[in-house]
């Protein structure tokens, strides 16, 4: 058993956690901004997939990684705007529209991918992100190679957490976001544009989901495949609840999930071969369900979540 444990907790283990947590952190922060403003975005799964595709394609065609990231972010923002158009401007059901956005984006992603690349015997590829060691910091034992020898997108995710907390809690815009998610009527009567604020938050959320997608196709897997997102978007929705709609806690939730996922990967690779690998694959999801059940009992959602705002309605 100790051999197994040793194999699991190698130097690379920490690094793997960070890498797995990165797209989850982007996606979770994105969903959190949207929900804080009162808009559930079930389009997240599809938005991540479509952004992964556009990012990958843009890089493949242009040869520029950052152009690809930009394409993914713009894609996410646009799909966010689409979701906001339905749910915020038109006040339609957030559940139905979100699932619609996911189905539409996924379909569009596969369709455009085939349209652009056709049926190739060798799948298209890109020269993906490479790790960028940060001088001095990457020399710290254990922590250095794990945290400070990563893709630049990982550093962005690490910075995004305090930045999100700052924006949400310390800026007037963040206060407006929280207020329209709690009591849009109060925001309206204080002169804050409810519709505009919600649009902005959902678009920002979409852009962050786009970053998550870009990371998957351009850093983690270096390819666009049909099962690329495989439920990470849904997990992010659970992590937002688990993280109680707070940037720090949400990031913590993403790390915890990533830990279980990394563990699961190691266990698959280790000497426990007599257990079917599907059993390990289930682990992170079982963890999510249990964690949600235990931790989310007294989590309280933003009061106006799911509720459209119309001024003259009582």
């Amino acid at each position, binding site marked *: 058993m100790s051999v197994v444990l040793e194999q699991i907790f190698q130097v690379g283990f920490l690094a793997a956690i960070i890498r797995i947590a990165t797209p989850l952190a982007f996606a979770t922060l994105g969903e959190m901004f949207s929900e804080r403003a009162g808009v559930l975005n079930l389009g997240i799964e599809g938005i991540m997939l479509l952004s992964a595709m556009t990012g990958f394609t843009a890089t493949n065609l242009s040869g520029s990684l950052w152009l690809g990231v930009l394409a993914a972010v713009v894609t996410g923002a646009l799909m966010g705007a689409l979701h906001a158009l339905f749910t915020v401007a038109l006040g339609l059901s957030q559940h139905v529209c979100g699932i619609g956005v996911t189905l539409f984006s996924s379909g569009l992603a596969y369709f455009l991918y085939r349209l652009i690349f056709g049926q190739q015997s060798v799948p298209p590829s890109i020269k993906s992100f490479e790790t960028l060691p940060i001088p001095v910091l990457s020399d710290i034992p254990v922590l250095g190679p794990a945290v400070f020898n990563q893709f630049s997108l990982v550093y962005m995710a690490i910075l995004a957490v305090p930045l999100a907390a700052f924006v949400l809690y*310390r*800026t*007037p815009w963040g*206060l*407006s976001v*929280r*207020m329209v998610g*709690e*009591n849009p*009527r*109060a*925001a*309206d*009567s*204080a*002169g*804050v*544009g409810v519709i505009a604020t919600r649009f902005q938050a959902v678009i920002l959320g979409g852009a962050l989901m786009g970053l998550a997608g870009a990371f998957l196709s351009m850093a983690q897997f270096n390819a666009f495949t049909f099962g690329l997102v495989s439920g990470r978007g849904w997990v992010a929705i659970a992590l937002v609840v688990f993280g109680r709609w707070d940037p720090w806690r949400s990031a913590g939730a993403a790390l915890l999930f990533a830990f279980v996922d990394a563990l699961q990967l190691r266990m698959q690779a280790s000497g426990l071969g007599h257990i079917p690998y599907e059993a390990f694959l289930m682990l992170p999801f079982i963890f999510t369900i249990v964690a949600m059940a235990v931790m989310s009992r007294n989590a*309280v959602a933003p*009061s106006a979540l799911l509720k459209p705002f119309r*001024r*003259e309605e009582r």
Partner: protein
Amino acid sequence: MPRPAPLIEMRGISKSFGAVKANEAVDLSVAPGEILGLLGENGAGKTTLMNVLFGAYAPDAGEILVQGRPVTINSSADALAAGIGMVHQHFHLAPRLSVLENLLIGIPGKSGRIDRAGGLARLGEIGRQHGLTLDPDLPVSALSVGEQQRLEIVKALFRGARLLILDEPTAVLAPTEVDGLFSALRSMAAQGLGIIFISHKLNEVRALTHRCVVLRHGRVAGRVDAPASTTSSEMARLMCGHEIVPPARGPSTPGAAVLTLDDISTSRHSGMALRDVSLAVRAGEILGIAGVSGNGQRALAEVISGVRAPDAGRMTIAGKIVSRFSPREVQALGLGRIPEDRMTTGLVTNLPLADSMVLPRIGTDAFSRNGLLRPDAIRAFAEAQIKAYDIRCPGPMTRAGALSGGNLQKALLARELAFDPKVLIVSQPTRGLDIGAARFIHEKFLDMRAKGCGIIVLGEDLEELLMLCDRIAVMYEGRIVGTLASADATIARLGLMMTGAEGHG
């Protein structure tokens, strides 16, 4: 007395919701330093008019002038910019955010950040000026209703309001809190602010305002230039369009006890626990339970209506011991109840009115057979009650939540009285209702009393209790601290007992 030039003026304002003309050609003006009373029955259009002024509703016709100049107010942001602030009847606050955050919403920050220091300074300053102090870091959910209202007022002043609109601010306050509000409003008026004060309570309007405008069915029904020297009945006549005669409570000959409580105690679940409460209501008697809210009335109402079982003690209804304390049991024994909160525990707001009207008796043969509902019977019952109680609504299938407060209360009353209860328990029966609707409810209670029903009225409105009740018990910290025959009771004496200052009377 010549009045200074108006601070704001509304001219010929009209606003309709579908077929309902909520406001029709209304003119109104307020001068600096003036407190204007806006009066009218429920549904007269007061809130709508003020929402037009505050930019929440777009008027169909008319214009608004601020200091003589016409302005277009398309949103609350425009209204705030024009110096108009409003305290809504249902507060516009986010309970989970702090006082300061609720205050600073929509205020531009300082170098990209929320200007916390600036906010604290202004909060302190406004607090000192008008006696409106608040703890900036408490979440709003931890504030009392009175403090939340204070926050709403401070919010308006913070944004530089020169005109402050208050929509029925006293409806949610305890009598002691009203005094604090009035002194703050007077202090603001003394500094040149204009104030529009909406209320049903004529004595308050007479005590506070300099001038009144009375609305009826969306139109101006009259103006009162000297409220202090105008009688309440004159104002009531303007509001309703006819004389309002207070109902006379004749002598009664109470019969046997229909409800008794012996040493009832509860544990502290939510709110104040009951401690050894004993009381008896006799047939043909109205017993009032007075007390500042939070002193156990809610627990008492819950025990009597079978929502909560006591830990100790005995209760009987019509001579039979209540054993299980379920709403169904007490109802079967002959208890009717009208809960405190019409919207949350009284009715199902998203269902048709007819369904809510039969809900407590949905399982009885009258409304269901073999486990299936009888929609025709339910509808016929609701239609009959709507007619009998003059409930104003498009029909029995209207969503209950769309009715006004007075009509909801009538519907609840109709639903209970249709089954001739032996005992009726009501909490705050006329809270938020106008005089006309309140009179109607009072008359029904007195009718029931004459028919031999025992009635318990829980409330804070001492004037109402004194007018209605034969005896008044006072609750303080979960106990009954004394019971007075209403002939011996005065507002002052009851008020004193309610603060726990006087023991058994």
